[in-house]
């Protein structure tokens, strides 16, 4: 899929673990792992809002369009 997630990059920049983000936004680690590994097929606006709010970033920082991927 040409849409890739940069959640791991954003977490690394902030030196935050997936577990910590999970606890802060109230989404299970299993679901965040699916998002981080790129296996997710869709993401809700509400989830995106929670992540952006917590990491203080925009959806464009988390999602990237890479043709040919």
């Amino acid at each position: 899929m040409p849409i890739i997630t940069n959640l791991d990059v954003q977490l690394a920049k902030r030196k935050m673990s997936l577990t910590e983000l999970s606890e802060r936004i109230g989404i299970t680690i299993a679901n965040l792992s699916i998002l981080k590994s790129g296996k997710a097929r869709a993401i809700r606006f509400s989830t995106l809002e929670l992540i952006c709010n917590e990491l203080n970033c925009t959806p464009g920082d988390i999602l990237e369009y890479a043709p040919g991927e």
Partner: protein
Amino acid sequence: MGNRQTLLIIKSVINVLWVLQWVIVFSIIVYVSFLILNVDFFNLDVLKGFKIHFSKIHFLQPILIEGKEHIVKLTNGEGRLHIENFDQNFIYMRIFAAFIDSFLYLLILFYIRKIFTNLTANQYFIAENGVLIRKIGFTIIALAILPAILHYLTDTMVANSIQIEGVILKNEFDLDLQTILLGILIFVISSVFLRGIELKKDQELTI
């Protein structure tokens, strides 16, 4: 009675049918062996009769009704024709059709058994079940078409090969439309089922 108990009962019935179907296939093999070996201890002429359709049978002798002689005939019917000491090569084609029939039934039972194994393991909405249901649909369509074609070919051979005075044999193509529609319906259901599984996966992978 719980859902699981019902499943187990149906599974037991399917298992019995499975064994019976194997017995039928085995019987066909034994029967063909008897035919090929031409054994004497088993009167195969009784079994060698084949189904015929007729449009007209004239009774050669007039029949006496209330003291008067009448010419009598039978029209548009079907029955089994038996000819003693007659080498019927068509019988092999009929057996082949029966073998195909039994094999397809066996295949359907095999698929159903696999589905029930998944169901008893609490695996309901998995792609394998959808694919198996689709295969059952295809096999049912084959079951309606393949033996019918073989029967039609045999009937044509019989109708063209045997000349009986006063009897007009005809061949009919008995296509079982109801079974074909059932197969198509199962195919449609399997497509809906597979799409449902896809949607379920989408739902699961939506964060």
